[in-house]
């Protein structure tokens, strides 16, 4: 069909929004890290208070940065892997913009103290409904595009993006069921132990299908594109996808070890978390083998460096997770900063880095100019690596010592240390973590500058027509 063009403007805007949210979300993160070192820097202001700002940090990076990046890259790759422009492009614009308005308004509501109280699902019921509506529109655009595709097989990346859309919808709707009281307050339909089980079914799988599965969609598209090599094993990607989709859902109760939920639920959660290691590492092997043979590109291409490093952190985090789900390890790690370290080795090392890699690839192509500065991108790479390593090491140190000191008993069976003393001994780790966050954030600022300058230097290029480039790498 003549005159058809890929809809890339919406992708460009989603990329810009994602970069903006990454800066704002990480800034909130660095600020709350500083509050744990200097607790009075909230200056007695409600909206700067740790309990509210930390919630803004998690929601800002997951829903602002993460989802905008996933939506943008999904819209970009689904057109190219299906050789057709987006289905219902106006609806795609609606998704993109409504999501930003929702994250902004939702963020303000969190600072105002509207908090549903469930981790990673804090937004109150009006936002829950809005999220569900936008998500359904996202599904219509995505699956609509797949529905009118010109190549028969649906490419692997789209299975993962599809899994993200379907499973997150299911989790979000069930976990958000609540009885509204006022505009800013509702009570969960589930109570106590049942609420805990539903919440961690949601919470763990928001990590699973959004932060892992969604970003694996990104990996399966951008890694082969970048490396200029096809996915190493098609069969392995099939097995890994279905095993991942099946087993992740069961793993939530490892967040409730030794809590007041049935023993069988905890044990099943642990066993399935260990099972999860297989599909996680199958994907790791597939990714590494895809890059193998293109190693020389690592020297010249900062974007590929980010993607390869993200794969390493993906491997680390998906190994650490199952280990932490073992009850005898969890007894030490639960409730400690080890969990925070684990989350950040995934969030900084895997999610943020693969997104940075994808953006360094994407933005020059979207604006039709070459990257403003490869040198700055390389500096960003080293800042991101240093920041992540320092963060994870500081939190390992803090978490393991907390866990062991809390449990420590002296020779007559009394507690060896008071909680207060253990808490006070965390100061150097928390200071290091603050520095680590600053380093990572400064790298992200360099990226924002680099991408903005790349955008400024753009030539007016005609958008590429469908099928102008091969999709199956």
């Amino acid at each position, binding site marked *: 069909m003549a005159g058809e063009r890929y809809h890339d403007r919406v992708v460009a805007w989603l990329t810009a929004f994602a970069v903006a949210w990454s800066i704002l979300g990480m800034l909130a993160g660095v600020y709350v890290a500083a509050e744990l070192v200097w607790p009075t820097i909230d200056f007695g202001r409600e909206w700067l208070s740790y309990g509210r700002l930390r919630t803004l940090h998690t929601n800002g990076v997951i829903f602002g940065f993460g989802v905008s990046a996933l939506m943008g890259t999904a819209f970009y790759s689904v057109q190219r892997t299906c050789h057709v422009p987006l289905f219902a492009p106006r609806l795609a614009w609606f998704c993109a913009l409504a999501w930003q308005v929702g994250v902004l308004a939702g963020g303000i509501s969190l600072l105002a103290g509207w908090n549903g109280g469930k981790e990673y699902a804090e937004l109150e019921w009006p936002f829950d409904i809005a999220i569900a509506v936008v998500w359904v529109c996202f599904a219509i655009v995505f699956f609509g595009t797949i529905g009118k595709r010109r190549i028969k097989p649906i490419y692997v990346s789209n299975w993962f993006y599809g899994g993200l859309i379907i499973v997150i919808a299911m989790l979000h709707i069930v976990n958000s069921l609540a009885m509204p009281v006022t505009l800013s307050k509702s009570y969960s*339909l589930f109570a106590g132990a049942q609420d805990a089980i539903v919440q961690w079914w949601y919470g763990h799988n928001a990590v699973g299908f959004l932060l892992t599965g969604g970003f694996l969609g990104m990996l399966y598209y951008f890694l082969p594109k970048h490396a200029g090599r096809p996915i190493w094993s098609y069969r392995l990607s099939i097995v890994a996808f279905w095993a991942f989709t099946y087993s992740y859902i069961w793993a939530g109760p490892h967040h409730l070890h030794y809590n007041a939920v049935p023993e069988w639920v905890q044990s099943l959660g642990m066993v399935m978390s260990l099972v999860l290691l297989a599909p996680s590492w199958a994907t790791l092997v597939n990714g590494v083998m895809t890059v193998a043979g293109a190693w020389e590109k690592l020297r010249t291409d900062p974007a590929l460096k980010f993607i390869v490093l993200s794969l390493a952190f993906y491997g680390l985090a998906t190994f650490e997770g199952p280990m932490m789900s073992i009850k005898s390890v969890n*007894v030490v790690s639960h409730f400690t900063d080890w969990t925070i370290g684990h989350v950040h080795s995934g969030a900084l090392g895997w999610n943020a880095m693969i997104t940075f890699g994808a953006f360094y690839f994407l933005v020059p192509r979207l604006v039709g100019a070459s990257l403003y500065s490869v040198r700055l991108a390389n500096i960003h790479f080293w800042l991101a690596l240093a920041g992540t390593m320092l963060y994870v090491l500081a939190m390992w140190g803090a978490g393991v010592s907390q866990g062991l000191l809390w449990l420590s008993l002296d020779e007559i069976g009394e507690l060896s240390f008071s909680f207060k003393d253990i808490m006070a001994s965390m100061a150097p780790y928390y200071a290091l973590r603050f520095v680590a966050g600053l380093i990572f954030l400064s790298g992200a600022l360099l990226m924002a500058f680099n991408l903005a300058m790349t955008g400024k230097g753009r030539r007016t290029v005609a958008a590429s027509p469908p099928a102008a480039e091969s999709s199956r790498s």
Partner: protein
Amino acid sequence: MNAVDLHRKLERNSGLLIFGILLVSAIGGLVQVLPSVLQDDLVTPGPSTAPYGPVELTGRDLYIREGCSTCHSQQVRPLLAEVKRYGPYSKAGESAYDRPFLWGSKRTGPDLHRIGGKYTDLWQRMHLLDPRSLVPDSIMPGYPWLAERAADADGSIQSKMRALRRLGHPYTDADIEAAPAALAGLREVDALVAYLQALRAPDREASP
């Protein structure tokens, strides 16, 4: 037909793919989460567990608003060191009226499930408003604004209790009728202190 041929069908039909993902991802929830949600004894209140009174309920909602569960758990695990440090371990029935549950996932500060009665009301009040006046090394934020506002500033306590009654909490008409009077004159900090003081292990005497 081998597995790869079977998969060729699946990956060429988007409807089948959507259905497949939904089915495969739903199994875990159906086998593991649904039975728990249908298991009544997980939310059967213990003999000394009663629904929160209007003051404690208001305090609990403030605890949620300020994100206290970001740093404080309410879940004593059945481990020797935890029972020694905090008190009797937490049981499911104690959370029967908790919407949402507030077990938490992080202890930047200590567990609070057995905090009730360990300190006086005055200590809790001063500690909430300015933690470092009592614990110099503390990294907890102060909450001075809690002393400035009326506990039920938006007058929503009766709607809250009615909403909870619809969810099965046994509030009587008289309970709901009397709620605004119970909160009259209280500041937010008073309600939050009342909630913290109510966080206690179930009464041994009341247990069968």
